[in-house]
């Protein structure tokens, strides 16, 4: 009898609301959207009240209005193309080299601990301080920016792949050997599928860091690319265009992250 009463009370929507009043019944997604909307709205209101004709800030509406114009500007397009090219090349190299060397170091028992310590130390260095050296060795152009992107992006890939490779189940390797599999089969059927989720999740971090490296290089030496354009826009008193470009870069970064996140979830489906 009491059990029945319990279930009924628990199932009543009113009962829930009575325990947790206010907006607690809202879904997390809804909460996020509303928070964002409130921030944007507040920003717009502030911009309209206090920042008319500001040289440094613009409201969201003005920014959004400026996006088409900014994006159709050939100079902006060229800058975006340059940065995108640099980013993609740097990210590709960081991915390929990071996975190859990471897997190699992760599979070599003796090399694992020393190389991991070294890489972790290198990862913790503020590379910005070293950028003058990159310029000294590689010049101002394309290659120094790409290399700076690689050196930012490669560490998480190396460390992530190393850790994942070390975690590969040795029993699975033995089992495949017993079934007649050679090194290549082990790599294809055991190592690769085991490390893939970790590798992709390290690529999410690597993508953000590679972009950071490329943009930093462009901001500092100011020859071509989005970074250089942001630099010049920030001193040319056209805030709406500046923010529109920033918004574009952020949107692109978020898109890359979402795509990698999608793959990460797909590849991790077998995990408990």
């Amino acid at each position, binding site marked *: 009898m009491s059990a029945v009463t319990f279930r009924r009370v628990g199932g009543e929507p009113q009962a829930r609301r009575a325990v947790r009043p206010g907006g607690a019944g809202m879904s997390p997604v809804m909460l996020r959207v509303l928070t964002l909307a409130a921030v944007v709205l507040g920003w717009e209101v502030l911009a309209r009240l206090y920042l008319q004709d500001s040289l440094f800030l613009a409201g969201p509406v003005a920014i959004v209005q400026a996006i088409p114009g900014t994006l159709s500007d050939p100079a902006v397009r060229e800058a975006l193309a340059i940065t995108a090219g640099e980013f993609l090349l740097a990210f590709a190299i960081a991915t390929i080299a990071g996975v190859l060397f990471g897997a190699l170091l992760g599979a070599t028992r003796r090399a694992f601990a020393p190389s991991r310590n070294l890489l972790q130390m290198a990862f913790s260095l503020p590379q910005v301080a070293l950028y003058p050296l990159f310029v000294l060795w590689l010049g101002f152009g394309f290659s120094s920016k790409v290399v700076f992107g690689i050196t930012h992006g490669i560490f998480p890939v190396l460390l992530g792949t190393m850790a994942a490779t070390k975690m590969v*189940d040795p029993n699975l390797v033995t*089992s495949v050997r017993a*079934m007649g599999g050679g090194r290549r089969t082990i790599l294809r059927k055991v190592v690769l*599928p085991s490390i893939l989720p970790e590798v992709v999740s390290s690529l999410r971090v690597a993508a953000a860091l590679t972009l950071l490296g490329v943009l930093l290089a462009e901001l500092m030496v100011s020859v071509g690319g989005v970074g250089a354009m942001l630099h010049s826009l920030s001193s040319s008193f056209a805030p709406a265009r500046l923010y529109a470009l920033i918004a574009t870069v952020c949107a692109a970064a978020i898109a890359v992250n979402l795509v990698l996140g999608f793959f990460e979830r797909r590849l991790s489906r077998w995990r408990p």
Partner: protein
Amino acid sequence: MLKNENSPEGRQPTTESEARIFVEDLEVAYATPSGSRVHAVVDFSLDIRRGEFLTLIGPSGCGKTSILKAVGGLITPDGGDVRIGDTIVTGPVPDQVAYVFQDFALFPWRTALGNVEVALELKKVPKAERRERAREALATVGLADAADRHPHELSGGMKQRVAVARALVSNCDVLLLDEPFGALDEQTRLVLGTELLRILESLGKTIIFVTHNLQEAVYLSDRVVAMSARPARIKEIIEVDIPRPRSPDIMVSEAFTEIQRHLFSLLYEESALAMNQP
């Protein structure tokens, strides 16, 4: 990887014609992290008959697994050799030998069906055929309904049965079972043991089984080899002449408990020795 030692008609001594696996003067040693070598197995010789269920039982860490790995070609012995039929084992022999490991060694990203299929994939069996054979093997172990589940959705006993199905699917004559029930609780172990026996009795495979469970050893085996503490030597070979097919009630029979008691006294001493080994 088998190499022919003799032509088939070259050797047919009557005593060996019934045997399937020959282990001669096997010696296996391991390098410890400090660099010294520890002998896991020395002077181990044994012939396993065709269709026999042979159990190696002994204290943990005594080298039973090393013997099994040497028979399957997963390690190269430091001395002596292993022959399967007329050929010396020099590497894995997937056409003749299938394994079941203690921790099941299932691919977590593959379904139960995919885990069974992998054995056939490595033998380049065409897709449709391997799918069908894998389904059959799963049905044999009573898991037809779990074909599409991933290992994390299976119980320990079910995972173990997937591993058995994978060993059966390639139709090898020789099965090497390395503590296949080791990771299971006592009740599951008992039920699966009886079930495994029912399946295997009908298939007539040659089986080497490693365990440290006395009851299991006696119940499943034709012969039980009691081993010493490391390095592994044969202490005694016990024939279990309880007729087959066996049913679980024989476990309380006089003959059964007699053999189990005898094994216990053999192993107690060695286990005490083994406990004090590093």
